[in-house]
């Protein structure tokens, strides 16, 4: 097992305690009511979760990707809705400004987000642009002093609670992915509004909405990154977000596994705990093994990113393996629990609903396989 540093162990201990004491008690309720956990997010902001991996000079805690990944894992272990809120804010809301922003943009946008004074979101997906981001229809036309944006984005996590939204728009028509640039916007800007609020299968406590741009003016200083280096490079570096999905999936799987382990030891049938039956033991053994393998992949991707090495392939592997693990583990967790596992009195069925998104968001499992294949074949 990879050796964790003292600060990583401390982050784990603190995040686990916080998750058990503050996050977990709200998990069932926010799922049931489809309620955004503003109270929990405020506590996370106070403790520095929202700026965890960013330098202190931008208001962050100055820790690294691995520490952030561990925090996302621990929080998702008890509540995936809270986990995705944190991950979307850090990886997608703050991530692009941190990776591509100018010094001025970092001071203006990253600082308040890392301090936890403002939430961030990221808008890429459109009705016609899912796996194929090149299909982006949102237009940004050059006007005096900036850009005029028209179009809409869908399924945007934190979309209605964010102060800053980074989004992609087509600046040059007919150029495929090359004609697309990224911008950051204050959501108080006229011409921007929140559209449809989604009703989801899982992650029901997280905020998922449509973003609408109607002749929305974006100042020229809000363009993120150099358009000439291309949109593809931009997406490539966003692979960082995939590690956090891997961490969420790992957390969900662990939560379901821990409940199953405890249940199997206590539930008595045919005169003995069901954990004594080989059918159950094999399921628990398989769960533990897949979780351990997921953890190694997820942590490895984080360590590579922290070391400044290539991690695109590893991030996709981690995301893919951990997300499929979370679906397998939560499915078997319901099986071990039997009837009660199907009931909403226990968190197991919620974990199963939450796990499904892991195979879809930030690149479907199919896209991850394409990325991995492209990385190992190098034939594109």
């Amino acid at each position: 097992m990879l050796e964790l540093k003292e600060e990583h162990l401390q982050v784990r201990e603190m995040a686990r305690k916080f998750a058990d004491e503050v996050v977990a008690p709200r998990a069932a309720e926010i799922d049931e009511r489809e309620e955004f956990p503003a109270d929990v997010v405020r506590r996370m902001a106070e403790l520095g979760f929202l700026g965890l991996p960013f330098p202190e000079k931008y208001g962050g805690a100055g820790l690294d990707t691995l520490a952030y990944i561990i925090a996302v894992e621990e929080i998702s272990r008890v509540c995936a809705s809270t986990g995705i809120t944190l991950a979307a804010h850090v990886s997608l809301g703050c991530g692009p400004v941190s990776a591509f922003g100018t010094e001025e943009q970092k001071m203006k946008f990253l600082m308040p987000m890392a301090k936890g004074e403002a939430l961030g979101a990221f808008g890429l997906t459109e009705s016609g642009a899912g796996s194929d981001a090149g299909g982006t229809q949102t237009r940004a036309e050059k006007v005096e002093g900036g850009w005029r944006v028209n179009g809409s984005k869908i399924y945007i996590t934190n979309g209605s609670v964010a102060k800053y939204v980074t989004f992609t728009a087509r600046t040059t028509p007919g150029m495929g992915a090359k004609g697309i640039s990224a911008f950051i916007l204050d959501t108080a800007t006229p011409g921007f509004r929140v559209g449809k609020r989604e009703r989801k299968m899982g992650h029901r406590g997280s905020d998922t909405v449509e973003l609408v741009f109607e002749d929305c003016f974006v100042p020229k200083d809000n363009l993120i990154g150099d358009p000439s280096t291309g949109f593809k490079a931009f997406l490539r570096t966003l692979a960082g977000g995939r590690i956090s999905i891997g961490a969420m999936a790992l957390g969900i799987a662990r939560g379901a596994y821990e409940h199953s382990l405890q249940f199997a030891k206590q539930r008595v049938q045919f005169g003995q705990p069901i954990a004594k039956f080989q059918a159950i033991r094999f399921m628990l053994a398989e769960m533990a093994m897949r979780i351990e393998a997921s953890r190694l992949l997820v942590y490895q991707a984080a360590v590579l990113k922290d070391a400044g090495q290539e991690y695109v392939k590893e991030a996709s592997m981690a995301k893919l393996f951990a997300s499929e693990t979370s679906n397998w583990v939560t499915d078997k967790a319901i099986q071990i629990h039997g009837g009660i596992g199907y009931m909403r009195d226990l968190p197991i069925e919620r974990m199963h609903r939450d796990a499904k998104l892991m195979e879809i968001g930030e690149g479907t499992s199919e896209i991850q396989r394409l990325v991995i294949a492209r990385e190992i074949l190098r034939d594109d």
Partner: protein
Amino acid sequence: MLQVVCIKQVAGSETRVKVAGDGKHLDTAGVTWILNPYDEFALEEALRIREKMGEGEVVAVSIGDAGVPTTLRNALAMGADRAIHLKSDVPSPDPLAVARALAAEIGPLAPRIVWFGRQSIDDDQAQVGPMTAELLGLPGASMIATLEIDGDRAVVEREIEGGREVMEMQLPAAFSADKGLNEPRYPSLKGIMAAKKKPIEEKPAQLGEPNLEVLSLELPPTRSAGRIVGEGKQAVAELVRLLREEAKVI
């Protein structure tokens, strides 16, 4: 104002405890170590006093082996300014020896308040705090539920059997904290980073020869399975009889 908080690293309550082969020590393999929960109340109160006064220093002190700095680092992450690790490879079974080692270190620092948790959750002796206070010649109160400081005066409340006791004393003094004195904070993520840069001073612990010896350590007998006496109202009388005559708990 300087406050010293004496903390102890203990096995987490989720750890499944095993007795070592010699029958006198705990097997420490696989143990998850934590900051003694009662000491967290003491540390939290010290931090609050420092914050309220807007000045002062909080020093965490612990005795133990090479694993102790991890726990001291947690105290620093919560907000202690610096730490002192009094090194001792073998845990002393003698509270008086521990109190002497602490007093030898704390005395020259001349703190206004010396803090302890009411007891450690492993040995449960609750002796080190009062003994150290005595050796330092300080007035002390153990298991305090509230504390008010006004200049050189301290007023504490203690939960006692059937009521509350209020005591007043002069500072400097020593206190041991009870659960409920406050709600300890989580170390913030910035605190965890800051703790990496705070100093932990290492010194040998002057424990001397222990005056007592642990002869044997045994786990409690495994709990036998429960029994269902019956169902409904008619079972109550039988249950009460068994609780009284067999279990002898009522």
